[in-house]
């Protein structure tokens, strides 16, 4: 297993947000983390990147990375599309993409990757010299995904990638994600409100409720179970 998490607790100040969370993810796998607002989905992703105080085990490639500083985790090849997009609003679109490749060497390969991102999201190419803060919400979401891909990650953490995107664009984005997963073998952990779409892309799903994983199973089964859908996924 590339990523193995066990007995993970997370805290905001005194308040505990995750309780003994356990899950894993294989090389090249795609899994999704579903649950209501405030369930702790974002907190799981933050825990992996050392952005909240945690205890418990997190293993990536057999390394115990719990408690590592964020930038050190990222340097292992973990890219994170954060909640709220994390745009560098005062820098240009292209600078945002360049920053995604900050830990990489090789100008030519980086330039080629930026070009590939522009092929995926032509809208970004048109706005490459524009301040990123002037992009629409949806465009910034594309930029956030593009920036994460610039790392050439081995694990991609996506926090509600569909947030703020029009339905057609969401379909397209998920299509692109599937393609990238197939082409590059990057593993993905996806947090989504759009459960139907996430379950289509992922092979396995975890359902989180008030900081605990209350159910997990193959995505097809979870999606097919009407009781689960009604109780946890709201559709």
């Amino acid at each position: 297993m590339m990523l193995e998490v066990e007995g993970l607790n997370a805290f905001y100040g005194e308040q505990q947000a995750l309780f003994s969370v356990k899950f894993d993810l294989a090389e090249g796998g795609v899994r999704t983390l579903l649950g209501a607002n405030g369930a702790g989905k974002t907190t799981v992703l933050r825990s992996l990147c050392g952005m909240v105080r945690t205890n418990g085990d997190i293993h990536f490639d057999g390394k115990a990375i719990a408690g590592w500083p964020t930038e050190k985790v990222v340097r292992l090849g973990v890219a994170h599309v954060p909640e709220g997009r994390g745009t560098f609003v005062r820098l240009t679109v292209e600078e945002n993409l360049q920053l995604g490749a900050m830990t990489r060497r090789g100008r030519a390969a980086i330039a080629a990757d930026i070009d590939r991102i522009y092929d995926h999201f032509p809208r970004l190419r048109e706005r490459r010299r524009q301040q990123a803060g002037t992009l629409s919400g949806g465009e910034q979401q594309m930029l956030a995904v593009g920036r994460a891909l610039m790392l050439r990650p081995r694990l991609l953490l996506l926090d509600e990638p569909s947030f703020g995107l029009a339905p057609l664009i969401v379909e397209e984005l998920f299509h692109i994600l599937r393609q990238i997963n197939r082409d590059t073998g990057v593993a993905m952990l996806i947090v989504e409100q759009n459960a139907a779409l996430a379950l289509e892309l992922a092979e396995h799903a975890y359902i989180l409720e008030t900081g605990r994983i209350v159910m997990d199973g193959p995505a097809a089964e979870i999606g097919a179970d009407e009781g689960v859908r009604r109780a946890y996924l709201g559709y």
Partner: protein
Amino acid sequence: MQLFLQQVLAGLANGAIYAGMALALVMIFLAIDHLNFAQGEMATFSTFIAWQLLAWGCPYWITFVLVVAISFVGGIAIERVLFKPLHNADILANLVAFIALFSILNSADGYIWDYTIKTFPTPFGSKPLFGSVLIDAHEAGMLVVTAVLLGLLYLFFSGTRLGLAMRAAAHNPVSARLVGIRVGWMTALGWGIAAAIGAVSGMLIAPVVFLDPNMMFGVLLYGFAGAVLGGMTSPGGAVLGGFAVGVIENMAGTFVPYVGRDLKLTIALLVIVAVLMVRPAGIFGRTTVSRV
């Protein structure tokens, strides 16, 4: 007209020094959200090191480069030792650290080199530039050296990956970490660059105001005024603000009757207060959203 031009040029020459100090202040402010009011003492200390090397017979430009390098390393060391541990501390703890730095450097100056006022050489000479009545050679040198320094900094920040990483870390530290930037080291680098800029400003102004432990006191005030005028969050604005303050100061000293040289600092500050009443974030600054 000739007097007017003379005063503008002299103002710009002083303004170059204020611009340097303003830029140094803004660099650290962007990185840690605090005003480094020991910036002037850091520059003075650097200038004393230069004075010592020159007294030992080291050639001027070798001294110049050495002192810039020493100051750069010193700035990084100050951040690592004194301010990195205070990374999450409140404003009072930071204030105490700045006071400590200020008084340590100030009394170190006096202890090592005593308080007598020292002359400091200029490599440009103080004759009129090419026989011109408009500007003397040292003033021209201040302008040229500062222009070169600012140009290099501009190229560094706009054209290199490290410069981009530093800007990203200052603007959005959380996202910067998420792309793998070592934000702590970018802060340290900011301190190093600020200290190096201060060293250049100190060595350039010392022939004019003479060297003593309190040499940069007034200069820092003008630099601060320039930074506030331009906007504490805008490096380019701070530079322009510094030049503007230099010119305003000189004009006030020359053309405002009775006030003369005594009150020109007051006048410069009044102008700035007036600007801030219209634009509280400075001319080029952004209103900052406070951190949560």
